[in-house]
């Protein structure tokens, strides 16, 4: 009874995934596509839960069903019917419809071939005995890793190199986003209903992030999930019209962004000096060191994701006074800015005063 119910559940889940993926990709309306992709992410989170991957389900619930949807929705609202959503440089040869059809068929056949090859690889993987995989090694060494959640042990201890490099990838992405120009102008200040939502949602998200970070040592959770949840708090603040979204300004911000890689390297190098292998924690210290690295990584990941949502370098509060900006920023600051940007630009206290009065109006 239970097994057949689960089988039907699996089939329905798989069908939803396939049809949502197809529907999200088939439509040419950008907003519709994004919403369908968010629904896909939500069902994917359920699939991870079903396949007993709660760590992945947590990350997917925070990122797939929430953050990446917010990111894409902001991009759709950003440039209505332009490069992103209207046509840019044509990819198809519009006037050669035969050629286009041939291209489409070739690519479709290629994709079918790819799916076939992947299925073959999958069959190979399934045939291998479970003992031959790394799972055995992980469970044998879990006791010395400093944590009892095997996924955290793999990420922060056994394969710490990979996580260090991943944080470097995130850092590179932030630098790329910074290099591309200033952040989007931001959002209108929240009305009473949204303001009420923000007032409880942001503290709860921060608490949830702290909880996930702490619980990650012995249960599903950890720096990635906590970082994504913390970033969601920043995104909500941004959507409510806050400009700084709780991020620190200037050099402190740079420090936070680099905190993940920095702490990781610092720990690794200190261990080298002490005569241990790079990132080879002594078992007695492993738990503490992992928590230290994870805290720094959480802050860096959260800052990265919030900056990703801003879509560029955050605007300093005083735009006109500071000179010597990199070219990209100076071009954009020459453009006429919105009224809010101007009013906040000259008077240092104007920004906070404005928020204050707006807060009062909400009550």
């Amino acid at each position: 009874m239970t097994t057949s119910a689960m089988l039907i559940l699996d089939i329905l889940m798989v069908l939803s995934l396939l049809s949502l993926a197809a529907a999200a990709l088939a439509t040419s309306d950008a907003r519709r596509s994004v919403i369908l992709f968010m629904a896909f992410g939500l069902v994917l989170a359920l699939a991870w839960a079903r396949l007993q991957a709660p760590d992945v389900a947590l990350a997917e619930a925070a990122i797939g069903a929430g953050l990446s949807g917010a990111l894409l929705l902001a991009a759709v609202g950003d440039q209505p019917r332009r490069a992103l959503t209207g046509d840019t440089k044509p990819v198809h040869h519009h006037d050669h419809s035969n050629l286009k059809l041939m291209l489409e068929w070739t690519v479709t056949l290629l994709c079918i071939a790819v799916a076939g090859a992947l299925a073959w690889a999958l069959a190979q993987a399934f045939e291998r005995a479970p003992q031959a995989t790394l799972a055995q090694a992980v469970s044998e060494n879990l006791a010395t890793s400093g944590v009892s959640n095997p996924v955290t042990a793999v990420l922060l201890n056994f394969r710490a190199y990979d996580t260090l490099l991943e944080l470097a990838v995130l850092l590179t992405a932030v630098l790329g986003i910074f290099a591309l120009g200033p952040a989007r102008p931001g959002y209108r200040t929240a009305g009473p209903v949204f303001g009420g939502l923000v007032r409880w949602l942001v503290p709860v998200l921060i608490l949830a992030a702290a909880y996930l970070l702490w619980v990650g040592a012995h249960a599903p959770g950890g720096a990635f999930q906590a970082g994504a949840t913390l970033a969601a708090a920043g995104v909500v603040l941004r959507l409510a019209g806050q400009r700084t979204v709780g991020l620190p300004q200037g050099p402190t911000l740079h420090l936070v962004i680099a905190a993940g890689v920095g702490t990781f390297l610092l720990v690794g190098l200190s261990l080298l000096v002490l005569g241990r292998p790079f990132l080879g924690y002594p078992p007695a210290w492993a738990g503490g060191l992992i928590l230290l690295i994870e805290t720094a990584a959480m802050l860096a990941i959260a800052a990265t994701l919030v900056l990703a949502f801003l879509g560029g370098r955050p605007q300093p509060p005083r735009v006109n006074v500071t000179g010597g900006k990199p070219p990209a920023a100076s071009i954009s600051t020459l453009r006429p800015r919105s009224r809010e940007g101007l009013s906040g630009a000259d008077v240092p206290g104007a920004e906070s005063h404005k928020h204050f009065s707006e807060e009062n109006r909400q009550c």
Partner: protein
Amino acid sequence: MIEVMSSLLIVSGLGFYLAGSIGLLRLPDLYSRLHALTKADNLGLGLLTAGLGLYTQDLLIALKLVLIWLAVLAASAASAHLIAQHARRRETQS
């Protein structure tokens, strides 16, 4: 006895969920669908969490379940309002 109670709660919760989904599909426009949505959020999840909490007999888990229900309640009320407002603004603009 407790098992019967919790089963009853879970099943009635599911009823509200299904009613909400069917309402969402069958009702003619956004504002009436809003009405279907609230049944699933408030009563469906509420009864389900009550049933599951009773079933686990674990105070910590029951507390978490109540927390989740409250979060969904507050979040869905606010977001349904925001979405309806957004749709209305779009309508009046065009």
